[in-house]
Structures are given as structure tokens and as C-alpha cells.
């Protein structure tokens, strides 16, 4: 039997061989300023709770969640608050940031890094620890994890899916973490399973990572409630909807949450963050990133402190062999093109992907020849060709009728388009327009 998957999808060049054999290297943080944006998650930005001149410690909360869907921000260094001011983020937007001058001492808050027995904690205590630690989905969306862990009907949850698909090309940080700290992944999953008594844990991995599959299978030996689920390698296998469908056969659409299908989906880094927060008393202050792409001299996986400058990380990959033409934060399918490296690393920064060429600039879009490749590639079973036609003609009603709002911008249609048409870009714009119109009503 072939491995579980979903209908549609594409097979881009994986590029994982560049960095998959490079162990995670912990970066010795540069002295100087660390910048913590108060908006690095979905939902309301956090409220800064420190002022200029304050002394802060490693792990100290510097931003307070300011709503139901919001997240705390903790300092990754010790030092003095230099400023609380708007700074540029990697998407070019300005946001309030707490700037801390690193004193290089890394003096931690009380209890930081000490063991804690999660079995002695109540469910609410665990949820509260996750909230206090400022944990959000680290795969890219940045949805506050404590909200995910508190669904309306906890008893209806029967699957905890750990997303180790890592279907984005080039990225290897989840892969390396599965190889290097499987016990933390299992530990984090056990914490979640404690909250959901009826649930079964599935660690979902694509079949292009046999070493990780083996490692995780060894790590879950003897765990009655945890299994490893092998999935077919195909983009976007790690999307929430495609993952749930492949692992459980259940399907959700835009108006449903994974919890409606009895699932909670968390990515590898997020589970590790949960483990560290609950069992090691360490809030979310570091993350693993992949520095890769053909421009880097030595592609590498690194463990970095949040708030450090992207530009300082370039040296970890031994600098650039060739001047990069394009630098992407995240994977090439859904990542964000950076215009400048002088922006801080956030909870959702999964990589620096530096490429010597820009495939997008190489091609000019030509007229659609209606080949239907976008229709076969769309994991949402949509008709991108018709959606684009409607959107480009300003027919947003038609766009909605064609279920354009079901698109989650995975980019598969644009990847396969032989006419090189910017379909996903058109949909992003149309979806934003429709959402803006809905808010007006």
C-alpha cells in the first residue's frame, strides 16, 4: 500500500540535500541589540510591559498578550531595554518593538531551565504555562498554541497530529530536530496527550525522510498512545487541511477548525517548545532555522535566540559564495521575500533561503492556454484558472462563487503554470479585497 496523501499537489525540487546532513549548531549570540516585535503571531499584538532603561533577564516576559488571540513575548537575552519603538519587520511593515541591549551574561529568571514534572500539573496549569511561555505555531502561521490547546469540546479531540511533513523545499530544521531531539518531541506530545485523554498522537513524516522516520519510531517504542504516520512526499503535504486528510481521512474547509474534525495539529518546533516550557521551565526564546540556498557557502541548521538580526546569521553559513539575488524567509513556496536582512528573527522565522537566481523574474507571464495543470495541482479542488479570470476582471462575486475564499495560497497552481501566470498573487489580492469588504458590512 502506498503512503497516505491527498489529491493534487506538486513536486518541486526539494533542495534538502544542501543542509540535511548538517547538525544543528547553536549560535553564540552577538552582543548588541536584540529586537522583539510585539506582533509576531496571528491576532492582537502584545503590549510592551517594560520601559526604556529597565533591566531584563533571559526568559522574562516583556510583552503581554492583549486579547484572547494574542501571545506573550519573552526576552531571549539579559540586558537593558534600549528603546520601545516602531521598527521594520521582515515584511516591510512597522511594528512596536522592544529593543534590548544584550549584556552577554545571559542571566536567567528564577528557575529557568530547571526540570518540572508535568504529571503533577493540572490541565489548566499546563495551558497557562504554554500561554505564559508565548508559544505560537512555529511552522509559519503563528497561531497562539494555548488557544489551540483549549478547544470547546476537549473530549471530542481524538487525534493530536505532529506535523513533521516539512513539505516546503529546502527547509531541514524540523528534520534535524527529529534526528537530534526525538525525546523532546515525544515529551511535548505526551504533555498534550495529558490534556486530551481520548486522543492518540500521530507524528506525521513524509517518506523522503527515512532517517527521521526510523528515529521517531524508536523514540515512540512503548508509548501506547503515540504512533508514527508515514506520508507520501508531496507539496503541500504539511498544510493543515491536507495533513489532517492524509493522516485521518477527515476533511475540513475554511470555516472549520481542525478541532471540528477532532484534530489538533502542531508542528515539530512547537511541540518541542511546549516540552521546554512545561518540563524545562523555558519559555519560547530560541528556534531552529535553516540557512540554505545556493548562495550560501556552507548551508547549515542553527539554533538561534529570537530577536537577533538576520544579517548577523549570514556568517554562520560562512557567508555568501555568490551575491544572492533573492533572499526568502521560509520556504520557496510560501515564504516571504526579504528586501533587507537587517530585521529581527521572530517565532515564525524558519529559514534564510538565499538564492543566486530569481525564477520569478526570469519568466514573463504569457496568456493562459487553459492546460488545466492548475486544476490538477490544486489541493483545495478549486479551479484556479477561472478564479484568476474572475479576480482579474474585478468580478469578486464570481471569485467567491468559485470558492476563491477556500484558497490558502499554497502556490501549487502558480508553480505548475506553464504560462508562468501569477495566480497565487492574484488570489492573495482578491482574498484580501473580499475580506476587507466583509469587514465593512
Amino acid at each position: 500500500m502506498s503512503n497516505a496523501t491527498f489529491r493534487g499537489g506538486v513536486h518541486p525540487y526539494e533542495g534538502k540535500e544542501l543542509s540535511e546532513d548538517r547538525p544543528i549548531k547553536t549560535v553564540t549570540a552577538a552582543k548588541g541589540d536584540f529586537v522583539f516585535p510585539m506582533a509576531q503571531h496571528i491576532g492582537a499584538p502584545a503590549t510592551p510591559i517594560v520601559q526604556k532603561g529597565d533591566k531584563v533577564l533571559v526568559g522574562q516576559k516583556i510583552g503581554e498578550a492583549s486579547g484572547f488571540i494574542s501571545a506573550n513575548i519573552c526576552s531571549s537575552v539579559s540586558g537593558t531595554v534600549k528603546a520601545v519603538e516602531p521598527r521594520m519587520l521582515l515584511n516591510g511593515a512597522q511594528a512596536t518593538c522592544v529593543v534590548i541591549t544584550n549584556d552577554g551574561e545571559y542571566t536567567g529568571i528564577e528557575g529557568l531551565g530547571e526540570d518540572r514534572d508535568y504529571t503533577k500539573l493540572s490541565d489548566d496549569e499546563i495551558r497557562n504555562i504554554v500561554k505564559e511561555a508565548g508559544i505560537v505555531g512555529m511552522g509559519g502561521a503563528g497561531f497562539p498554541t494555548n488557544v489551540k490547546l483549549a478547544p470547546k469540546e476537549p473530549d471530542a479531540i481524538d487525534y493530536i497530529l505532529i506535523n513533521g511533513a516539512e513539505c516546503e523545499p529546502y527547509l531541514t530544521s524540523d528534520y534535524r530536530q527529529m534526528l537530534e531531539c526525538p525525546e523532546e518531541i515525544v515529551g511535548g506530545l505526551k504533555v498534550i496527550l495529558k490534556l486530551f485523554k481520548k486522543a492518540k498522537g500521530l507524528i506525521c513524516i513524509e517518506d523522503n525522510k527515512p532517517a527521521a522516520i526510523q528515529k521517531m519510531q524508536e523514540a515512540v517504542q512503548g508509548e501506547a498512545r503515540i504512533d508514527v504516520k508515514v506520508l507520501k512526499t508531496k507539496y503541500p503535504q504539511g498544510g493543515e487541511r491536507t495533513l489532517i486528510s492524509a493522516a485521518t481521512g477527515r476533511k475540513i474547509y475554511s470555516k472549520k477548525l481542525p478541532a471540528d474534525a477532532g484534530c489538533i495539529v502542531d508542528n515539530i518546533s512547537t511541540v518541542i517548545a511546549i516540552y521546554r516550557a512545561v518540563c524545562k521551565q523555558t519559555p519560547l526564546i530560541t528556534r531552529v532555522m535553516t540557512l540554505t540556498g545556493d548562495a550560501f557557502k556552507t548551508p547549515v541548521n542553527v539554533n538561534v535566540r529570537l530577536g537577533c538580526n538576520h544579517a548577523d546569521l549570514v556568517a554562520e553559513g560562512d557567508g555568501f559564495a555568490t551575491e544572492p539575488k533573492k533572499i526568502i524567509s521560509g520556504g520557496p513556496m510560501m515564504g516571504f521575500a526579504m528586501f533587507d536582512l537587517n530585521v529581527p528573527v521572530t517565532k515564525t522565522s524558519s529559514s534564510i533561503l538565499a538564492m543566486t537566481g530569481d525564477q520569478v523574474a526570469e519568466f514573463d507571464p504569457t496568456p493562459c492556454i487553459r492546460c488545466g495543470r492548475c486544476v490538477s495541482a490544486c489541493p483545495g479542488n478549486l479551479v484556479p484558472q477561472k478564479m484568476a479570470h474572475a479576480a482579474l476582471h474585478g468580478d469578486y462575486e464570481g471569485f467567491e462563487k468559485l470558492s476563491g475564499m477556500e484558497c490558502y495560497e499554497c502556490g501549487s497552481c502558480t508553480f505548475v503554470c506553464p504560462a508562468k501566470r501569477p495566480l497565487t498573487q492574484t488570489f492573495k489580492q482578491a482574498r484580501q479585497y473580499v475580506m476587507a469588504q466583509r469587514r465593512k458590512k
Partner: protein
Amino acid sequence: MSNLLNISSSPHVRDKSSTKSIMWDVFLALLPAALFGIYNFSIKAKSINAVLLIVVCIATCVLTEYIWETCMKLPLTVSDGSAALTGLLLALNLSSTFPVWMAIIGSVFAILVVKQLFGGIGQNFMNPALGARCFLMVSFAGQMTSFTYDGVTGATPLAIIKTGKIPEGLSEPGLLDMFLGNIGGTIGETSAIALLIGAAYLLYKKIITWKIPVCYIVTFAIFFLIFGTNMDGVASMDITVLCKELCGGGLILGAFFMATDYVTSPITPNGQIIFGVILGLLTGIFRVFGASAEGVSYAIIISNLLVPLIERWTIPVPFGKEGLKDE
């Protein structure tokens, strides 16, 4: 920073295939049939006309597109190969003795009227090559239906099967001859095997899917088994006759190379199945009940016109919304 970085919205990578690579792949897939046509009608018959038709049709199509786009100050699309492909397809749909000047008119009609006047590549509502073929059929019926093979001018194999009349000097075509292509007909339609080699290449390269050709051929086969008649006009359910019907009359050329034309076939998966079924039914009706023994071209261009309607009926249900009512 000295060098500015490129920025763009995701995704940042693209697949290798392009409009150009697809068009030239289809062109390549037609070469076995074209080469066989040249062998069959030029080398064997010692006449240059078939080669000339292929060259002239391709050249005229490309030139027409070039001149039109230059005059109208449009971006040049000649290099994407679609005009050349139209020319080749048109030539393969002509009788080997067809006058060259008429072929030029047909080529200009295909590119100028059917393709460019409706907006160029991707905008034509019917297959340009078939549109031109039907235009020539109406304009020059005599020349279009005059087929010479082995020095004898006469009816096509399908006409022989349909009417039961074997013209003087010809024999009833054997199935093997029809499969290999040792029969009369248009330049590109005679050899089923050469066409199937090209079709296999297209399927292998994932340029076409099985849906349209298989639904087309299967529907036609079922229709013909039920309603078809043998040489004596009696309903026969004769498998040999059916196989001859499948090999002849451009059915394979049409099913794999022209019905699958991206621009003029549905893009929805279910729509492609319906499209194939409609094609099969129409071809069956035209061949069994129509005046002529062939009907592939008309079946395809009529079905082309139904495509917008078919697509409207067959928009797929989005992922996760199966069985739900529209809100």
C-alpha cells in the same frame, strides 16, 4: 547594500514546463504520423505534394501570426510553437493531392480568423486547424474529399465500409493495412500505429490525460456496436468493422491530438469526461446516420462550442465541502 534584492510574492519557484515546451512536445508527438504521411504519399507515390503541403501550411501559419502581431503591435508569440503546430495539424488533415494555394488560404483562415481575431493564443473558441479544415471542406469540397492512393483516386476506407461499394482498382481495406496506414486518406490520419506512438509520448509526458481520448473512443465504440451497420447495411456488432472504424477517418488523430487541445477542451476533470462522451456520440451519429462516412472534425468543433457550458456544470466541489450545501 550595493545590490538590491529581488522581492516578489510567493511562490518563488516555478516548474520547468512552459507553453513553448508543451507546444513543441505536441509537435514532436505528431512527427511519426507526419513522417509516415510523407512516406506514404510522397515517397511511395513519388509526388512532392504532401511534403509541400506540410511545409507550406506550417510556414503560412507562422508567417500569418508574425505579420498580424507585427502590424497590430502585439507581443510576438511565434516562438511558442502554437502557430507551427496549427500548421502541421492542418496539413495532416488535408488530402495529399490538395492544391497548395488552397492550403495557404486555409492556413491564413486558421490563424487569422479562428485564432487571432478572437484574441490570439488561449482565446480561440474552436481548434484553429479544425476550423480551417471545415472551412476548406465547405469551400472546396471536391478537392478536400478526393483521395488518391497507389495511383487510384477513390473513396476512403470508411466510405467503402459505409456504402459497401468498392471502387474499381481498389480492394476492401484490411484491418492490418488500416492499422499500419497502407490506405488512402488525409496525410496524417492513415497510420493508427504512428499516431498511437505519438499519443503514448504525450501521455508519458503528462501533456494530455487519458480522460478525453478514452471517453471519446469508448463512447464511440459502444455507440457503433449498437447502431453501426456492416457493408450490407445490417446491424452487425462486428468487431472487425468496429476496429476499422476506430483506425480510420482520423478518429485517433482527433481523439489524442485535437480533442485534447487545451484551449478548446474543458479544464474541469468531470467536464473532460462529459466532453469525451459528447464527442463519441456526435462522431457516432455523424458516421452512422450522416451523409458522410467521417465526422470527427465536425464532432470536435461542435463540442468545442459546448465547452463553456460543460465547464459551468462541472465546477468541482472544493476540498472538505463534499456533501455540503452551498451556504
